[in-house]
C-alpha cells in the first residue's frame, strides 16, 4: 500500500512528522510551570541533610535546611544572627546561661505548635560534626514555660552562640513528638520542620521536591514548588540552564561562566563565601629556612597579582583580602588592602639576601584549586621565587596539611563556620590543627580572649591578634572565593548574596519569579 493509496500525501506525512518533532521538542524542553522553581545542584543531595541533628562541618546542608527547617537564630539578610524561632536570647551576667524566649504560634509542617520541648530536644539530639565541642560545655536545659527555656553551661563560653546558632545544626528545631513517633530513619524519609517549604518527595541522586508551607511564620513563600535537581557535571548544568530546564544552576566557573554571560537572558550571580584562600609558610619557624625571614613572606604577598587571578578565574567576583579571617565573621578586623608590587617584592628579596631569587621547592595545594596555584606560580617566578606546583587530591591534601607534613608553600582555604576566635584556634594559635608553629604574643592574646566575656574587650583583643597575624606575614591571603551560579530569565529575586557569606540562594521565602511581588 502506497502513501497515496491510503489517502495520505507526502506533504501530510511531512506535516505530521514536523508536528511530532515539535511535540518531542516541546516535551524535551521541559520548561517549569509558572509557579515552580527548579534548581540544579552541583552535589548529590543526601537525606542526612534533611535532618539538622546530623549536619557535618560543611556549609552545603544548609542549602536545604534553610528551605525545610528554621532555627532559633540564623543568618538572615542584614543580620548574621537574626532572631527567628526565638524572639530573644539573653545571656546571664555571669555568662553561664542563655535564656531563650520563643516565638508563639509557630507551627511545624504537620500543624503542631513549636514549644520549648522541641528546642531542648533538638539541642540534645544534635550529633553532628561539632557535637562534642558543644555538649561538653552544655550542663543542662531548663524549661520554664512552653515558650521559654534556659541553656546552662559548665563554664562561661563566649562562643556558645557561634556554635549553637551558627556553626552547627543544634539550634535548628525539629518536632519532638513526630521524631519520636516515626523514628530516626522515618524522619529522614519524611522530614518535618518549621521552615518555609515542606518535604514532598526525594529520589536519591535525582531530585528533591518541596512545596510552599503557607503557615510559615515569617511570610508565605511566593513560589509554590521548589525542585532541586542533581546535575553533577558543570557543562551539563549550564546546558540545562540554557534550555530553561532549570532556573538556577549552582557553581558555574571559569570559561563556562563566560559562556553563561554570553547567553541572552541568563545572568551570573556571585555570592562571596566565607572561604578565604591563602598561602601559608609552614617553615617560617625554622631559622634555616628562607621563609623564616618576614621580608621573604611579605615579598611573596606583594608578588601576587590578585586582581588578574580574580578576573581570570572568577570573573572578578571574588573578594580580594589581606586576611585569613572572613569579612563576615564576628570580631573581624579589616586589614589594609593587599598590594601588588613586584618591584617592591624584588627589593625585599634582595634585602633578605636573595638578589637572584631562590628555589623554593614545592607548592602544595588541593588539586581542585590547582588553577589558582598555576597563576600564583607565574607571579612568584616573576620576582624570582621558583616553585613547583604539587597538587594533591583533596582528602590527601587536608590530611597532610593537618598532620603537618607539608613544607615550603601551602595554598590553603577554609569555609568552616564560626567566628574569628574559632578560626584563630585552628589556623594561628599554638596547637591549632593547621598551625605549624605559633608566636608567644599571639598565643597570649588568644588565651586572653577565650575567657573574656566582655564583648568590647574581647573584640579589641581579637582585633589586635589579627593585626599581629598580618604584621608578621604568617599568611599571604589571596581572596574570599566567590561561588558563581547561573540564574535563568524567569527568576525575579534569586536570593543570592542576600545572606552575607552564604553561597546558596536563601532565604527561600524571599525568592520570586518575574511577575510576582
Amino acid at each position, binding site marked *: 500500500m502506497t502513501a497515496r493509496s491510503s489517502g495520505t500525501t507526502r506533504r501530510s506525512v511531512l506535516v505530521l512528522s514536523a508536528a511530532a518533532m515539535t511535540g518531542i*521538542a516541546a*516535551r524535551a524542553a*521541559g520548561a517549569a510551570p509558572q509557579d515552580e522553581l527548579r534548581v540544579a545542584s552541583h552535589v548529590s543531595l543526601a537525606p542526612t541533610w534533611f535532618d539538622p541533628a546530623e549536619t557535618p562541618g560543611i556549609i552545603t546542608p544548609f542549602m536545604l535546611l534553610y528551605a525545610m527547617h528554621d532555627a532559633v537564630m540564623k543568618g538572615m539578610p542584614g543580620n548574621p544572627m537574626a532572631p527567628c524561632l526565638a524572639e530573644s536570647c539573653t545571656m546571664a551576667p555571669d555568662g553561664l546561661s542563655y535564656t531563650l524566649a520563643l516565638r508563639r504560634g509557630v507551627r511545624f509542617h504537620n500543624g503542631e505548635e513549636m514549644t520549648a520541648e522541641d528546642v531542648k530536644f533538638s539541642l540534645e539530639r544534635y550529633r553532628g560534626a561539632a557535637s562534642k565541642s558543644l555538649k561538653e560545655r552544655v550542663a543542662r536545659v531548663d524549661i520554664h514555660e512552653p515558650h521559654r527555656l534556659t541553656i546552662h553551661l559548665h563554664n562561661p563560653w563566649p562562643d556558645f552562640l557561634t556554635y549553637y546558632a551558627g556553626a552547627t545544626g543544634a539550634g535548628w528545631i525539629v518536632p519532638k513528638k513526630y521524631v519520636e513517633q516515626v523514628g530516626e530513619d522515618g524522619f529522614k524519609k519524611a522530614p518535618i520542620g518549621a521552615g518555609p517549604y515542606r518535604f514532598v518527595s526525594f529520589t536519591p541522586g535525582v531530585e528533591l521536591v518541596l512545596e510552599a508551607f503557607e503557615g510559615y511564620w515569617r511570610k508565605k513563600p511566593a513560589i509554590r514548588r521548589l525542585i532541586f535537581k542533581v546535575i553533577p557535571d558543570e557543562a551539563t548544568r549550564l546546558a540545562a540552564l540554557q534550555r530553561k530546564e532549570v532556573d538556577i544552576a549552582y557553581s558555574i566557573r571559569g570559561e563556562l561562566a563566560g559562556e553563561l554571560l554570553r547567553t541572552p537572558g541568563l545572568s551570573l550571580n556571585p555570592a562571596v563565601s566565607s572561604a578565604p584562600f591563602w598561602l601559608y609558610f609552614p617553615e617560617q619557624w625554622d631559622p634555616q629556612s628562607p621563609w623564616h625571614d618576614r621580608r621573604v613572606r611579605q615579598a611573596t604577598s606583594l608578588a601576587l597579582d590578585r586582581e588578574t587571578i580574580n578576573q581570570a578565574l572568577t570573573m572578578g567576583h571574588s573578594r580580594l583580602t589581606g586576611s585569613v579571617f572572613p569579612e563576615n565573621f564576628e570580631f573581624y578586623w579589616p586589614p589594609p588592602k593587599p598590594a601588588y608590587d613586584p618591584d617592591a617584592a624584588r627589593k625585599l628579596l634582595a634585602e633578605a639576601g636573595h638578589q637572584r631569587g631562590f628555589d623554593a621547592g614545592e607548592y602544595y595545594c588541593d588539586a581542585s584549586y590547582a588553577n589558582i596555584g598555576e597563576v600564583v606560580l607565574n607571579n612568584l617566578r616573576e620576582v624570582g621565587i621558583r616553585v613547583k606546583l604539587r597538587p594533591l587530591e583533596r*582528602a590527601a591534601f587536608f590530611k597532610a596539611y593537618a598532620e603537618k607534613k607539608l613544607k615550603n608553600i601551602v595554598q590553603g582555604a577554609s569555609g568552616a563556620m564560626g567566628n574569628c576566635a574559632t578560626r584563630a584556634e585552628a589556623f594561628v594559635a599554638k596547637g591549632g590543627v593547621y598551625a605549624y608553629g605559633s608566636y608567644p604574643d599571639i598565643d597570649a592574646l588568644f588565651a586572653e580572649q577565650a575567657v573574656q566575656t566582655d564583648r568590647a574587650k574581647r573584640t579589641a583583643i581579637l582585633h589586635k591578634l589579627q593585626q599581629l597575624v598580618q604584621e608578621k606575614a604568617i599568611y599571604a591571603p589571596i581572596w574570599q572565593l566567590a561561588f558563581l551560579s547561573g540564574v535563568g530569565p524567569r527568576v525575579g529575586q534569586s536570593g543570592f548574596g542576600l545572606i552575607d557569606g552564604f553561597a546558596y540562594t536563601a532565604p527561600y521565602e524571599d525568592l520570586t519569579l518575574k511577575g510576582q511581588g
Partner: protein
Amino acid sequence: MKQFIVRRVGYSLLSLFLLSVTIFLFVRVTGDPTTLLVEPGASPEDIENMRQQFGLDRPIWVQYWLFATSFVTGDLGQSFYYRTPVLELYFQRLPNSLQLAAVAMVLSLLIGIPSGILAAVRVGGFWDSAGKTFSLLGLSLPQFWVGLVLILFFSVYLGWLPSSGSGGILHLLMPAFTLGWYFAAAHMRLTRSSMLEVLDSEYVKLARLKGLPEALVIGKHALKNALIPVITLAGINLVVMINVAVVVETVFAWPGIGRLLYEGITFRDFPVVQCVVVLGGSMIIVVNLLVDILYAYIDPRIRLES
C-alpha cells in the same frame, strides 16, 4: 561434571574473597573520608568523633572482619555520605542502570554486528574501512566529550532532547548512544574477526560449493557460529555497562550505579565503593561461572581437560 562445577564454584568464591579484600584495602589507602565531611578547621575531637561513628578508629583487620561477616548476612553497611544502607542505595539505582544498559546494549549490537558482518564480507573495501574508522572513533573518543557534543547539538542548539536526567525515552537516547557506541565498536571488531575466521572455514566453503545463496551462507551458516564469542563478550559488557558507566551517567546526570560509584569515590564513601565493586564483581563472576558450565556442558573436552 559435578566435580567440575564444584571446582568452578570454589574458584569463584576464592575470586570473590580476593576481590573483597582488594577493594577493602584499596579504598582505605586512598585517604581518610572524615577530612571530606568536615571543613578544614574542624576540631580534632569532632573529627575523631566522626571516625568513631564510622568505625574507622578500629584496627583494619577488625574492620574487615565486620565487613565480611556483615556481607555474608547480606548487610553491606551504611553509606557515610547518605547515611542510608548501601544495598538500599544500590537497588534504588539498579533499575536506572538496567534501563540504560539494556538500551545501550541493543544499540551497540544493532550497530556493531551488522557493521562487523559488512566489514568481513567486504574485507579491504569501503565498508571495511568505514567500519574500522567507526570502531576506532567509538573506542578512542572520550565518552565525556561525545556526551557533551551531543548535549550541545541536540539539546542546546536543536532543542530536541532533554540535556540530562531521567524520566522517559527521550532522556535515554543520548546517554544510551554514548555508552552504546563505545561497546558497538568492540562488538563490531569481534564480529568482523570472528566472521573472517568462520568464512574461511571448510563448511562455509562447502555451503558455497553447494550453490547456496550468499545471503543464506552468511546469515545462516556463518553468522550463527561467528556470534558465539560476540554473545559471550556482550554478556560481560552488559555487566560492565550496568555497574561502571561512570562517565556517561555523570555527564547526563543519569541516576545509575555508575554515578553512585563516582559519588562513593569522590566522598571516600567506603561502604558504597565496596558494595558497587563487590556486587559488580559478583555479577561478572557469576556470568563467567555460568558460561564455563555451559561450555563444559556443550563441549565435554573442556571438563575432561580441566
